């Protein structure tokens, strides 16, 4: 058992990689069963991973460190903290769901399933690598299976989309590599821990920030680097979209939290107004565009851009509240958008179209499907009680003290978000049936057991995390505190330097000072504590 725990992360990375190889050489008849079976092992491994993770500890856990290329001081270092753990869990959960959703892949199933398992390995690698070269390796390696999934198993315009996806992300990554090499020259190490403990001059921080920003902003994707995403989503097979929206986009935001904010706090603070602006634009702009899309996958793709705007806005707000919100939105968007893309897959499998105009009245023909999609739609519009609400609420609440105007702009996103999601839902499920639906009524069977299986874990998580977000929040208490402590003072100094940054009610912060004295107010989940109080003592009275 100790061997297992001390190499847990390596296992989580290399088991899927080996599984990918096994899947590739399995006869086509058994590929999907074998792949699914193998993909359940990392998911099972996540159980001890979560159980043994101690959220009270600061710093990394499950660390492994071995010499790799001593000539350049490159080490094989793995380790996770509360930022990475939930994303690893999400990856391990979504991969089997994606495989189940891809049950009907006809074209070269060995290749498809192998690519998927390899993708899982590399993504987990990205989240657990603690050495820059290792991180970069996984970061780039991840592009290959995804490129293949879009380019080989995608839609009619797949090559264009795959190339666009590859070039965009690759160009960003190259700048990150150069910045990494520069940091190696300065520090003599590729260890992220060493980098984090190095204090850099502001000028260097600015350039380093921009280089890393290029890689992460493309991945998130932030406005105006987002145009690869709709194309990639539309062309990708269902499972590709699920994993892309569910996990891959989170890698960008994860990068901001792992590299930019803690390593270059002054540099990040310097560019924070730019990030705020781009984020607020992304929230509103992408929501507008989503509203006029005719392709339902494109709509959901643009909704991703819009939601990731909340993530970056809140992350760069730097408050503990904002960072909690940012991480929650990341996790919840991973759950909800994955569910929505699975939902699109359900109808695409039956009607082979994604045009909104080709649906209609499906609530009557497929009531169970309508129910599932209604839950997902409500979660996507951040209805309180669903998981998305707490995330968005905390993200905006936490951003308000440092960026009130941008927060107010982003808040209008809740209106446009509801507009396109309800428009989408009405188009698919309500109203009159389109010609396409009328001609294919026989094929329009309601959800099969296999499809229910893909939805059920996500449907369970939506209310669970909606009512008890602390299940996830407890994991990242420590890193959130640490990041905020590094970055927020820099941001406050920055805001103080630039009177040009608009602030409503500057005096309010002095009054309550929630961000200065941000102490951890954690209440344990308790039973029904009852306290009898007269709610208000009338200080003034009419009589």
């Amino acid at each position: 058992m100790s061997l297992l725990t001390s190499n847990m992360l390596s296992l989580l990375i290399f088991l899927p990689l080996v599984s990918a190889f096994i899947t590739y050489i399995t006869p086509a008849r058994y590929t999907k069963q074998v792949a699914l079976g193998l993909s359940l092992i990392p998911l099972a491994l996540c159980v001890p991973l979560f159980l043994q993770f101690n959220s009270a500890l600061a710093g990394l856990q499950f660390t492994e460190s071995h010499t790799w290329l001593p000539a350049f001081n490159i080490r094989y270092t793995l380790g996770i903290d509360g930022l990475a753990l939930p994303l690893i869990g999400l990856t391990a959960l979504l991969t089997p769901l994606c495989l189940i959703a891809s049950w009907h892949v006809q074209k070269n199933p060995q290749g498809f399933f192998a690519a998927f398992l390899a993708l899982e390995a590399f993504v987990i690698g990205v989240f657990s690598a603690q050495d820059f070269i290792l991180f970069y390796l996984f970061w780039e390696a991840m592009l290959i299976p995804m490129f293949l999934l879009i380019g080989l198993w995608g839609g009619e315009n797949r090559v264009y989309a795959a190339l666009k996806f590859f070039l965009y992300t690759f160009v960003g990554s190259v700048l990150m590599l150069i910045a990494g090499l520069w940091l190696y020259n300065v520090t003599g190490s590729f260890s992220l821990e060493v980098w984090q403990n190095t204090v850099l001059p502001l000028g260097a921080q600015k350039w380093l920030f921009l280089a890393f920003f290029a890689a992460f902003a493309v991945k998130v994707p932030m406005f105006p680097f987002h145009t690869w995403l709709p194309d990639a989503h539309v062309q990708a097979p269902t499972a590709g979209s699920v994993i892309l929206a569910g996990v891959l986009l989170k890698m960008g935001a994860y990068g901001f939290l792992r590299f930019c904010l803690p390593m270059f706090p002054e540099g990040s603070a310097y560019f924070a107004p730019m990030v705020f602006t781009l984020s607020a634009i992304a929230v509103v702009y992408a929501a507008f565009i989503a509203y006029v899309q005719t392709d339902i996958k494109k709509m959901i793709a643009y909704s991703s851009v819009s939601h990731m705007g909340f993530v970056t806005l809140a992350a760069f707000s730097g408050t503990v509240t904002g960072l909690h919100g940012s991480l929650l939105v990341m996790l919840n968007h991973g759950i909800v958008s994955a569910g929505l893309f699975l939902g699109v897959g359900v109808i695409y499998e039956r009607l082979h179209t994604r045009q909104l105009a080709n649906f209609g009245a499906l609530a009557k023909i497929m009531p169970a499907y309508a129910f599932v999609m209604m839950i997902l739609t409500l979660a996507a519009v951040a209805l309180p009680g669903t998981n998305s609400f707490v995330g968005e609420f905390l993200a905006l609440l936490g951003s308000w003290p440092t960026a009130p105007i941008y927060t107010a702009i982003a808040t209008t996103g809740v209106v446009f978000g509801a507009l396109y999601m309800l428009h989408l839902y009405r188009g698919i499920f309500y109203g009159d049936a389109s010609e396409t639906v009328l001609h294919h009524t026989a094929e329009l069977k309601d959800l099969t057991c296999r499809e229910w299986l893909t939805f059920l874990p996500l449907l369970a998580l939506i209310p669970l995390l909606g009512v008890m977000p602390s299940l996830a929040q407890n994991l990242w208490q420590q890193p959130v505190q640490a990041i905020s402590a590094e970055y927020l003072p820099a941001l406050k100094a920055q805001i103080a330097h630039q009177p040009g940054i608009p602030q409503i009610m500057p005096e309010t912060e002095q009054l309550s000072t929630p961000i200065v004295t941000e102490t951890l107010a954690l209440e344990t989940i308790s039973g029904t504590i009852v306290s009898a109080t007269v709610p208000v003592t009338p200080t003034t009275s009419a009589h």
Partner: protein
Amino acid sequence: MQALVPQLTTLAVLLPAIGALLGALTFLIWPTLKAELAHGHDDHHGHDDHAPEAPTASSKWAHYVAMSLTTGSVLAATVISWTLFIGLNNGTAEPVTTHWFTWFSAGPWAVTFGTMLDKLSATMLIVVTSVSACVHVYSWGYMAEDASKRRFFIYLSAFTFAMLMLVTAPNLVQMFLGWEGVGVCSYLLIGFWFHKASANAAAIKAFIVNRVADAAMLVGLFALAATFGTLTYSEIFAKVDAVSATNSYAISFIALFLFIGAMGKSAQFGLHTWLPDAMEGPTPVSALIHAATMVTAGVFLLCRMSPLYEAAPQVLHIVGYVGAITAIFAATVGLTQTDIKRVIAYSTCSQLGYMFFAIGVSAYPAAMFHLTTHAFFKALLFLGAGSVIHGMHHEQNIFNYAKSGYVLRKVLPITYGLMWLGSLALAGIPPFAGYFSKDLVLESAFAAPGGWGLPLYAIGTLAAMLTAIYGFRIIFMSFHNKPKVDEAHAKPTKAKSKKEAHHDDHHHTPHESPWIMLVPMLPLAFGAVLSGWLLHNMGTLEWWDGSIVIHHAHSALHDAHHIPEFFKKLPLILAISGITLAFYLFAEYRGIPKRISQLLPIPYAISLNKWYIDEIYQVLWVNPTASVARFFAEWGDKKGIDGLLNGGAATVRDFGQWLRGAQTGYVYHYAYAMLLALTLGLGYLLWKTM
């Protein structure tokens, strides 16, 4: 009693949720049935296409199990609510705050689920559960022929739960949960007949207009959180004095943005456009959600936040004027609408305006009092209208009742009587409920310090007369017809549409509604008649035991009893003249209204077209939104960003080709190039060193 109060409160809130969940579980045992997949029951043309298949035994069970569970749980919640209310009233129970568990905590914020029971929430509890229980029972009859009625009951109970969460929340975040929850249930219920395009459009409109208001409300909440450092009511109220001493601007900002949120939910002028369209939903929904409970959430919120609003007097002025404008605006529109439900919807809008202008003059108790009485008589009116619609086979146009050739007051005698009670209460005739509460609102406005409420009083009194006219227009137009209809008198102003003609062909016999629909109207009728007299203590500040706070300088409510006698009686005089006028115009001389509309075409057109607000919004908001969205998609993404990128790619390609052109292969070209570079480089170095 006191020991059980927290548990009882929790139970009252959770029971409807349990009912809804258990009802939803019936879908696991009996999945969606064939009958449910077919076209449902329909307000406009339902009678000719619903339930094509005979219900099987299992389908009956599925529905009745779900309906019993939901109705039973709401009835139980009603009993508990009344127990608590009476307990608070006679002193056997004390206000209590319960904590269930921490919802979320981050940074300085810790938000808990729980309940807060005081006079304010207890009043809302009885209003919500009582009307909800009546509507649940009524729907057994009204929705009897609907193929997916269990879904309807599940939504109703879910709505009731969300509304109870809203009113019993101890903090603003849980309140917001209820706030959004009722919005979604409203969306689902307006669009219940989802094959109707108009119902879908109305549902989305309701949700989006409310979301616009909610976005403003969220901004208010963020500002409030940043200013007060808490989102819990009791902690906010404790800090109001300290904050207003240093930062009254922040208080006004917060109060204003929360009010915008309240305007959306309570359909105040500017954000009211969704409410009339919401009448696309089944009539019991209109009674519960769009008359008695959800739309009053905004009024409740402002009363709950009274300590804050008392510190923001400028915002109170805005609240007062918005309320008054809404009251008169909706009343003028209500005069000319032909759809019985829409008339009542505009009436609701108008009455909510009264509540807000009561708040504007700091007469929160008067607002809550009117909210309570209004819930009873308006729900009664809607259920009565539903009974008429049911009896007339889904005909909603009051002019078509006149044409039907039946004397409705003889065909529907019980409904007719109940509608009279509701209308008298609405018009404010003593001793009916509306008289007590509406007069208190108007008198408070008159007594507002410095006389700033006088315009509100004038507007409100005029609107009271209009209320009597449109209220009794329904009664006289719908029920007082001659047996053999005289074409010259009853000709509708508009030509018969195809659909209406289609209806005439059916020749269904109108009938009185079944007992299952009439009996639940009786408690509401009781409330409409007696609640004003029984609950008149609600109009005093003392009754609220500190759950409402009024600044001592805002003495409107206190002085309301000391205004000149004439101005106390004036609304009543006008209301009685309104009823008399309505009798002559709409029962005796039906040709006159038509003449008036011809004489005053412009005011008539403005009223009939609802002041053209929808058209203005189409131009102002809806079309620009779509245009901007298309512009972003086309010029922002496709031609802008991607265009630049593709252009960039082309530039790289062209540059490469140009460079290739430079590779001539002639040695002297290279030599010249080297020479040039060397010269430039050396020159630069020289220039630097000098």
